[in-house]
């Protein structure tokens, strides 16, 4: 097998994967293909079905319908075979708080049958890798949030899995630790580990090879971050509305309402005290926007034309999806 073929091999694949809990449809006919060596990001709001998807792919929850294969094994019938190939880090802190850093690692090494000198070598390497060597005797419950996440990751890596499942690994972690955590993921990626990661942070989504936008249990868009950003046609104007009489959200709303109805405007998103205006042609529309705001006794500051980021793209795509869904409901 050439290395190229190896790279393109599909390691995770789901067909119409569905999970229903009594009345809630958590995952709704999910179709997904993750190729070897990819960092695949699952991005979506809370309750979109990301955790349920991870559980089904980790073969610890059976789907209601559809199927999934991981490393060529069926999650329902060959669950135990899959477990040698994956490392799963759940969203909540999932280690033993009363055991030390080292004892947690040793436990996972033992249950994965990593023994003797090999165990010691990997232990040292992972402690170093996660920068936890000096905390090896500290109880896991006494670590900081970021260190806990790194220890959890180290425990997932002790058996050197080919596939990593990381369910919101950086939620609740400070920005510096977040950056550090992603640097670690980058080095794993460089070694060829396939990573399936969910995140609510768009800057992290931009670091993935491919991203699946999950909305209400379905993947609405699945592509590279660049292509997803490209899905928002036209250009984006960023501006800060000013006003002598209107303040805060009131000012932002007023500005949005008057801009929204102009020609060539596709979408207006509020972003703190900034407005992100998506237009067909920035050069033509920017002066018109400024004039309109002036007519309403408002000014602008720091107007600039930028390309949309993941964040804007995500909001726009989710909004589009919600509108379509509402229309569908009306039709029926």
């Amino acid at each position, binding site marked *: 097998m050439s290395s190229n073929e190896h790279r393109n091999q599909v390691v995770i694949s789901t067909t119409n994967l569905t999970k229903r809990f009594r009345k809630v449809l958590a995952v709704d006919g999910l179709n997904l293909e993750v190729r070897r060596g990819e960092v695949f990001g699952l991005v979506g709001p809370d309750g979109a079905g990301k955790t349920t998807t991870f559980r089904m792919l980790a073969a*610890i929850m059976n789907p209601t319908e559809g199927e999934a294969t991981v490393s060529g094994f069926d999650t329902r019938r060959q669950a135990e075979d899959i*477990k040698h190939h994956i490392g799963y880090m*759940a969203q909540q802190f999932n280690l033993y*708080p009363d*055991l030390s850093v080292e004892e947690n690692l040793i436990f*996972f090494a*033992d*249950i*994965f*049958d990593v023994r003797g000198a090999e165990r010691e070598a990997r232990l040292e390497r992972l402690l170093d890798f996660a920068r936890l060597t000096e905390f090896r005797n500290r109880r896991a419950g006494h670590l900081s949030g970021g260190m806990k996440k790194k220890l959890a990751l180290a425990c997932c890596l002790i058996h050197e899995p080919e596939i990593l499942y990381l369910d919101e690994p950086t939620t609740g972690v400070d920005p510096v630790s977040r950056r550090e955590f992603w640097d670690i993921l980058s080095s794993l990626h460089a070694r060829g580990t396939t990573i399936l990661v969910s995140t609510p942070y768009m800057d992290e989504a931009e670091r993935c090879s491919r991203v699946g936008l999950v909305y209400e249990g379905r993947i609405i868009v699945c592509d590279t971050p660049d292509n997803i950003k490209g899905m928002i046609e036209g250009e984006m104007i960023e501006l800060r509305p000013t006003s002598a009489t209107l303040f805060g959200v009131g000012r932002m709303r007023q500005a949005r309402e008057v801009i929204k109805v102009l020609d060539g405007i596709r979408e207006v998103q509020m972003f703190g005290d900034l407005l992100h205006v998506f237009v067909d042609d920035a050069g033509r529309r920017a002066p018109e926007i400024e004039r309109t705001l002036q007519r309403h006794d408002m000014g602008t500051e720091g107007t600039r034309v930028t390309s949309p980021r993941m964040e804007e793209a995500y909001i726009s795509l989710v909004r589009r999806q919600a509108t379509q869904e509402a229309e569908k409901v009306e039709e029926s």
Partner: protein
Amino acid sequence: MSLRKTWAVVVKEMRHTRRGGSMLILVLIPLLVMIVFSVALAQDIKGVSITVLDRDKSALSRRFLMTLSNSQDVVIGREAQSYGQAEGWFDRSLIKALIVIPPGFGETLVGGGSVAVQIVVDGTDPTTAGHVITHVASRSQAFGIEQAMRTLGRTAPVGLDAVPIDLRVREWYNPGLRNLNGLVPAMLAIALTLPAINVMSALARERELGTMEIVFATPLGRGELLIGKVLPYVALGMISAVLCALAAVAVFKVPFRGSFFIYLALCLLFFLASFSMAMVLSIFIRTQAVAILGGMLVFIFPSLFLAGIFYPIGSMPPEMQMESQMLPATSFVAITRGLMIKGQGLDSLRNQALILLGSALVYAAISIKLFKKRV
């Protein structure tokens, strides 16, 4: 099934119990429960004071009172001068029992006639009252027979057969029906159901922490996980079993007539049965709080009332008898009593041992069938 992986789980579990500072507590709790229950439920009533209203004041009435207080069960307390005075003492809860000897008591008896002796007891304390009545009745009977024989002996020399019935009670295995001898082995059995609650709590803890989910996503087998989690509690339970037996003998002076080795072997069997039952229950339990409360409801209370300690199993309604037989504690109570007090060996305890073995296998099979590595 890998021994090494199972051992990894054992080591981890031991660390949890040691870290929580709970290892000593886990070992000592059954001992404390056995002691507290035994002391609280012991019905050996000693030295109840009986007030006397002696209207005869003859040599014979004095001798009768002496006979009553010959054992330590009752003592003759203060003496009332009149019925009214004794009544006042009852009203003020100063006394619990009164014996009234009528005038002419001695004379009548010597003449070969019969007399009525009155016992008055405080009915608000039925236990003490019943105890006094039984005691006085049996002593009076003995005194009456003795007296009758003397009288008869004086008029005509006849032998023992002149008294038509000579009822002699022989209390086998437990002379004097020492209450503690029956109670302590039963409480020991109840106390040793407690480690099963620890098993339930340990399994619920992993679910509560979310570590169960992670462990499910590893190749660790169900058997390795369950056996590894249970083994430390078997070990701690065995230590408790030894301590409880020592306390029964040293503190409560209960005889230990059977083989200690068989005792340990049957304790082990009992743990296997009760822990398997705990594993089945754990499948439906998600939090430690529920595990502990549920464990008490399932193990301690039914065992206390259904294992035939206070109420004979034979007098329970049939469905209760069935429930009683499903509890490992029922067989175990029979085992500890038989082994310690009767000195029974394996041949006599075979049925109980087989029931324990059977329920261990059935519960273990159910738990393996129902326990899935799924969240």
